[in-house]
C-alpha cells in the first residue's frame, strides 16, 4: 500500500499528462519558405495530428527580405525555445543563420547566433510575435536554453 488518496493519483497523472502535451504542438516536419510559397494553402503537420496554417502575408514579408537561396534554406515555423524561469529565450537557427537575419529585420537591430541558437530577451518576444504570428512557434524546454 502506498497511502496515496485517489485525488493525489489523479493530480499526479494530470500533471504528468500536462508535461507530455506541452510540446505536442511542435511541427512533425518543417518546410522551407520556398516550398510554402508554392503551396495554395501553406501549412505544416503538427505532432498532435492537427495542422498549422501560415498567413500568406507573413510568408510574403519573409520572401521580401530574403534571397531565393535563403528562402530555400529557411525552415518554418521558426522555433522559439522557452526555458523555465529564465529571462532569455533561444531561437533555433540553421547553418546559414538566416533566422538571425530575419530577427534583425524584425527587431531593427543586429542579432547574432552561436552554435545553432540565437539568444534574445523575453521583452523582445512581443515584437517578434507581432510580425511573425504564424511563422514562429514556441517550444517549452525542461532545462536551460
Amino acid at each position, binding site marked *: 500500500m502506498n*497511502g496515496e488518496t485517489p485525488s493525489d493519483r489523479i493530480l499526479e497523472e494530470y*500533471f504528468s499528462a500536462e508535461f507530455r502535451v506541452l510540446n505536442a504542438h511542435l511541427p512533425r516536419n518543417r518546410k522551407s519558405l520556398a516550398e510554402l510559397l508554392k503551396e495554395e494553402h501553406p501549412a505544416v503537420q503538427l505532432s498532435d495530428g492537427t495542422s498549422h496554417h501560415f498567413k500568406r502575408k507573413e510568408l510574403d514579408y519573409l520572401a521580401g527580405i530574403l534571397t531565393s537561396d535563403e528562402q530555400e534554406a529557411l525552415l518554418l515555423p521558426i522555433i522559439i525555445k522557452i526555458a*523555465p524561469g529564465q529571462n532569455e529565450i533561444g531561437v533555433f537557427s540553421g547553418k546559414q543563420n538566416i533566422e538571425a537575419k530575419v530577427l534583425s529585420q524584425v527587431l531593427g537591430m543586429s542579432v547574432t547566433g552561436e552554435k545553432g541558437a540565437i539568444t534574445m530577451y523575453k521583452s523582445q518576444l512581443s515584437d517578434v510575435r507581432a510580425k511573425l504570428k*504564424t511563422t514562429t512557434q514556441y517550444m517549452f524546454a525542461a532545462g536551460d536554453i
Partner: protein
Amino acid sequence: MARILKVRPTKIELVRLKRRLSLAQRVQKIVKDRLSILTLEFLQIARECVKAKERLLSDFSDNYSALSVAVGYHGPIALEKEIVAAEGDVKILTGSRNIAGVRTPHLEMAEAGKSTAIGYSLADTSSWLDKSAEYSQKCLDTIVELAELQRSLELLGMEIARAKRITNALEYVLIPGLLSTIKYLNMKFEEREREEKSRLKRVKVLLERR
C-alpha cells in the same frame, strides 16, 4: 497548514515523495512560463482586436456616407439594380494555427474571393458607388480578421484560466502537501533514531549493573 499525505513512514516512501516533489516543481516552472506566454499572446490579440474594431467602425462609417450620397444621386431603385448585378461569392480560407498549445482558428479572405471585376456599369454610376464598393471590401476583410481575433481571444482566455488553476493547485495544494509530508517523515526518522539511542543507552546501563 498543508495536508500531510497518508504514507508509510519508510525510507523508500521518502525517496518516492522527493521524486514527486521534483516533478511537481519542474511542472510548476514550465506551466508558469506557459502562463506568461499565453498572457502575452492574449494581450497582444486584445490590442489587435481593439484596433480592428476601430478600423471596422471607421470603414463602416465611411461606407455609409458614400452609400448615402450614391443613393441620393442615383435613387434607391436604380442603385439597387446596379448593386444586385455586382453580387458575388465570398471565399474564405479556413484552417487552424497553434499558439503555445492552444488551437485557434485561421481565417483568411481568399484572393480569388475578392471581387476584382466590378459587376455594375461604370458609365451609369457615380464614383461614390466605387468608393462604397471599396469600403465594403475593406469592411469584409476586417470582419474576417476580427472573427479570427475574437475567437482566438476567447480560446486563449479559457486556456489561461485552466493554466492558472493548474499553477494554483501545484503552488497551494500539491507542493506544500509534499513538503510537509517530507518534513513529517524526516521528523519521524529522527525520532526513531533518538528512541534507538536511548534504548541502547538503557541496555548498556542494565548490562553494566549485572
